[in-house]
């Protein structure tokens, strides 16, 4: 071995999906640095997930990264059977001894901050939110966003709808249009397609997980960005040093570890809004303020 560790990614969706793209990006970066050798399987159906895990484990991968969300049981079983392989899995459940560590997209903090900016920015006091599926990973960010907006603007109302697909931008766009027709002047863009609707109707949008402001100049007010690098790099280091353990890596998605960040467009945002958010960010970083994690399905408030 040339000192590189071998890492495999197993994703249930294509690597363009926002969530997975963050993991993929961090692993590609590690590969480029020369730290790891990285292979992946995308769009693995959950029937096949266990087999793919086993195949990678059998191939002698040092670290397997993936999402266990709808295959918890299988993932945990495989991990237990291959104690020499490190597994780092997206999961809402605790880690499992000795070799399954978990992470999740805990970027509710920046989502809260984007909510504050949106709450200031809205003039109609109606914010539209389009989601893929109502799962905890989505719900918690929406709730945090709503909490942030409500904090600065108690008048604000939310429209929420789900399109039941990770990948149907035309449909997401239509759902967003429907909200604009109902008076929304800010759109929370959980899915691809929503920001497009905002741009076409000349209103503003809030980004999520990835930074798309380059694609929609003049449209994205602020985004809550997820960075998987701290999580991935920690795991790689642990594997390298043989100290990988059944830990919860979720904390590395928090702002304090650089796992989440706020990007805001000061030109677009109303005066003072970004400053207020930045101030809140300091409170969060210092531990003075904690954003609540709420995984239930968000509902319209109109």
């Amino acid at each position, binding site marked *: 071995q040339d000192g590189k560790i071998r890492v495999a990614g197993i994703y249930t969706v294509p690597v363009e999906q926002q969530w997975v793209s963050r993991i993929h990006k961090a692993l590609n970066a590690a590969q480029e640095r020369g730290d790891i050798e990285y292979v992946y*399987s995308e769009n693995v159906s959950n*029937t096949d997930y266990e*087999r*793919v895990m086993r*195949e990678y484990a059998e*191939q002698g991968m040092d670290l397997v990264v993936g999402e266990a969300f709808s295959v918890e*049981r299988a993932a945990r079983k495989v991990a237990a059977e291959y104690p020499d392989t490190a597994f780092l899995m997206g999961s809402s459940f605790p880690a499992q001894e000795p070799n399954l560590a978990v992470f999740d997209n805990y970027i509710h903090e920046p989502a809260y901050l984007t909510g504050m900016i949106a709450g200031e920015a809205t003039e109609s006091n109606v914010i539209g939110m389009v989601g893929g599926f*109502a*799962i905890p990973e989505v719900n918690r960010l929406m709730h945090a966003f709503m909490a942030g907006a409500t904090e600065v603007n108690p008048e604000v109302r939310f429209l929420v709808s789900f399109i039941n697909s990770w990948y149907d931008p035309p449909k997401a766009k239509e759902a967003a249009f429907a909200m604009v027709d109902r008076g929304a002047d800010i759109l929370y863009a959980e899915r691809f397609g929503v920001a497009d609707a905002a741009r076409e109707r000349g209103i503003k949008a809030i980004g999520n997980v990835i930074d798309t402001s380059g694609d929609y100049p003049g449209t994205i007010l602020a985004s809550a960005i997820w960075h998987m690098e701290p999580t991935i790099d920690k795991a790689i280091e642990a594997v390298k040093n043989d100290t990988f353990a059944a830990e919860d890596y979720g904390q590395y998605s928090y702002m304090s570890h650089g796992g989440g960040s706020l990007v805001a467009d000061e030109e677009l945002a109303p005066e003072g809004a970004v400053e207020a958010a930045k101030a809140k960010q300091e409170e969060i970083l210092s531990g003075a303020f904690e954003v609540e994690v709420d995984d239930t399905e968000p509902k319209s408030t109109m």
Partner: protein
Amino acid sequence: MIRFEPRPERNRLLRVAAPIGAAAAALVLAAIPLAFAGAPVLRAYALMFSGAFGSVFALTETLTRATPLILTGLAAVVAFRAKLWNIGLEGQLYAGALAAVAVGSGAIMAPAGVMVPLVLIAGFAAGALLMLGPALLKLKFGADEVVTTLLLNFVVILFVQMMLEGPLQDPMSMGWPQSAPVVDEAVLPPLVERMRLHSGLLVGLVAAAVVHVLFRHTVWGYEMRAVGENASAARYAGIPVSGTLVRVALISGGLAGLAGVGEVAGLKGYLTADLSPGFGYAGIVVAMLAALSPLGAVLAAVFVAAVFVGADSMSRAIGVSSYLADLVVALSLLCVLVGGFVTRYRIRRVTRHHATAGRERA
């Protein structure tokens, strides 16, 4: 000019040679994208074979994937024989799975000897009931069952999601839309230690035998065939056409429901809305590849599963895009389809002997 003629009798050599030829043709075709992706073609073939059959693990994985296909394939065989175009196998599979977790994840407690039959029956009944709707709409209103069953697939999956976020959600799932696991007593026992292969396979094999006997040896099967071959002659002869179609619908939907039971109670343990990667649609393919023969459906299911599992494993071993596996499955499917044609028809170049050349004329 070229014409196709049916072969007077099936050529035995061809019946063996055609599938092999078809497989070979599929492999040759698959070489194009393989080479395109820069993979070593010959090694890829070897890896594909060993990925499907090369170890106990590979073999059990192939059979595991074949299990739901056998059942949805049989469901299609039963329906299509009676010319009831049930395209809603996917929805019926989910209905079966939903019933299995509704009954099997704690609502009822009983020993395994009771629980296992119970979830099987519940799943069968749910699938059957779901197919009853389209059958009745067809009989009462003439609503085309292709449309109703196809659209119901979407409705059922949404319904499953609703249940998984509502009454059937596992309280321990941390908010994830999934059901509570089926209790240990309701689990279809595994067949090979440490492997995923479960006794759903036995359910599939028994079902194949039952359907075979049904069509070959029973009055019901006879009536189903008669209605499928010529419904108006069957009606004239006094066969209850509507009743037969309802029976077909129930059995077909029920078999697809059983596939869903196998996937939750045998394989996964709990239900999520992405349980099936299209087993319902693949069942149609399996049935037609098997020329609507129930026992053939078993072979066809294993074939389809093996190609997928083998190609998928190969794509991972040599590091090409995993979409290649689906591509190889599609190519194999089309090649096998053509292969079946070759056993049934021969190609004739039409050249004629002229009368003047063929016979002495005065």
